[in-house]
């Protein structure tokens, strides 16, 4: 039941969610843009990749571009960046819950467009047998290890990129504008332009992650990109710690592994209905417990950017000094 290959698959999925959660953290954790459109952007990148790499006229789609992987992959990233730009233009006029609901609406529009444009996307049937890197060179089940290595490598790259963004002056300004937009403006920061660029950058990275998700699931259909997908990424980020640097990936591993483990509980077959009903309940309980004991998540923004408390305590009392005005 619990073969290593199974767990390698679980970890691969967890790292994909983790990469997306780290990207979400740049937008939402540091940028304060509560984006509920991750699934829509991922769908854009995944479908773009799937469609341009179709090389079998037998599928009955309008186009049979047959692009090679090296061209389709970066093109998918750029295309997703363009989609993000189109979403950002109206959405960034709004804040907080209004931004959230608008990005969610766009994600749903994208999903329904995919269903409707069946000449291009094969609608609800979806596209199967998507080509994978190094496929055929490694046989059968061992491919899971290859894919895990590829995804792990990509996760490290996403981690390094997001860490660099977060610790740069740009990342600092992003957090500053999240804390106090009016003050950032009064200091000459082009807050809207910065947020637009952030949203588009996030889109490009999500588009680059999308083919990995395709390699993992092999066949796509619109139902994969329902809002539940985005909520899972959000849950992972919240468990891991919004605003931290590595929280997204840590939260995703904890959440996905726990969810899969619950599914493995052995029960009498006649009680399988109970298990199915109880699974989301267990995940919910787990989430509550994590947040009860670590309300800021497994990792925290304070730790990621602040200075060790000990150092502060030894140097100065935290209240006004004799020199200050109060």
């Amino acid at each position, binding site marked *: 039941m619990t073969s290593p290959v199974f767990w390698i698959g679980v970890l691969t999925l967890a790292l994909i969610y983790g990469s997306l959660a780290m990207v979400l953290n740049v937008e939402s954790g540091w940028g304060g843009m509560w984006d509920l459109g991750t699934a829509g952007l991922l769908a854009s990148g995944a479908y773009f990749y799937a469609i341009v790499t179709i090389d079998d006229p037998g599928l009955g789609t309008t186009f049979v571009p047959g692009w090679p992987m090296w061209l389709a992959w970066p093109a998918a990233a750029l295309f997703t960046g363009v989609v993000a730009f189109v979403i950002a233009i109206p959405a960034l006029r709004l804040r907080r819950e209004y931004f959230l609901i608008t990005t969610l609406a766009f994600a749903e529009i994208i999903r329904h467009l995919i269903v409707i444009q069946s000449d291009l996307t094969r609608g609800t049937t979806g596209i199967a047998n998507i080509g994978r890197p190094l496929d055929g060179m490694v046989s059968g089940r061992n491919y899971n290890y290859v894919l895990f290595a590829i995804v792990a490598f990509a996760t490290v790259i996403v981690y390094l990129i997001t860490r660099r*963004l977060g610790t*740069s002056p740009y990342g600092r300004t992003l957090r500053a504008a999240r804390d106090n937009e*009016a003050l950032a403006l*009064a*200091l000459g920061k082009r807050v809207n332009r910065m947020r637009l660029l952030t949203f588009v950058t996030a889109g490009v990275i999500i588009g680059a992650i999308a083919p990995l998700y395709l390699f993992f699931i092999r066949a796509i259909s619109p139902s994969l990109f329902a809002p539940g997908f985005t909520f899972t990424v959000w849950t992972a980020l919240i468990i891991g710690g919004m605003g931290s640097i590595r929280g997204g990936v840590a939260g995703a591993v904890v959440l996905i592994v726990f969810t899969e483990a619950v599914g493995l509980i052995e029960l009498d077959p006649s009680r399988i209905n109970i298990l199915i009903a109880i699974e989301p309940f267990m995940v919910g309980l787990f989430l509550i417990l994590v947040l009860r004991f670590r309300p800021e998540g497994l990792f925290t923004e304070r730790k990621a950017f602040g200075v060790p408390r000990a150092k502060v305590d030894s140097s100065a009392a935290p209240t006004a000094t004799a020199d200050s005005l109060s």
Partner: protein
Amino acid sequence: MELVLDSVSKTFGGIVAVDNVSASMPHDKITALIGPNGAGKTTLFNTITGFDPPDRGSITFDGKQINGLAPWRVAELGLIRTFQTPVGFTTLTVWESMLCAATPHAVETPIQALIGRKGRASEREAETRAAGIVEELGLTELVDLRTDELSSGDRKLLEFARQLMAEPRLLLLDEPAAAVAPTNIGRLSQLIRRLRDERGLGSLIIDHNLSFLMEIADAVYVLDHGRVIAFGPPDEIAADPEVKRIYLGEQEGDQT
């Protein structure tokens, strides 16, 4: 170089918050803006700094028209304002806030952030300047604290320090003496005066503490119901019967 307002008006719904205000504030002088609550002082700040663009009239700084410009563009020209309540960048440390306020002219793009080297020249330059300002204002001990961990007086100081990082050519201070302990107001006056005398950096100041303002101001504008009702040197304003009636008279009325 001066900030010039020419017949500026701002209306909210049916209420005229700023009514045909004309004024000129030299960049190297301390100008006070006084008036009872609701006189339109903060609204005037908002219209100058682009947060609430005026409905009519023109605002120029250094001969350049600034009404209609976005707030960040006004700030880029060197008009750096503070806010009545010094909330600050709540989760940033004092040091991060200082660095963030630097180089208002170049907000990095994500691409620049990715290819930029650690400890790049612009960042090093900002650190040097921040260290100087922090030292000058006596904030050195507090640099590692988060803004929301500071006392309100220290937050006020940080606000001052941060706005100085943004390379202002004229400061717009909204109630700098509020929440400052009376015994330390002298230090504040000294600081504002020193900026004017040593760096030629003037201020436009709103405050309710009249003795503090009258002591440091080179010129005073009195605002009432959105209109300028008096203008002149502090001693002249203090003696103006109209000002006494409207401004000070109301204060007496409040107390009874």
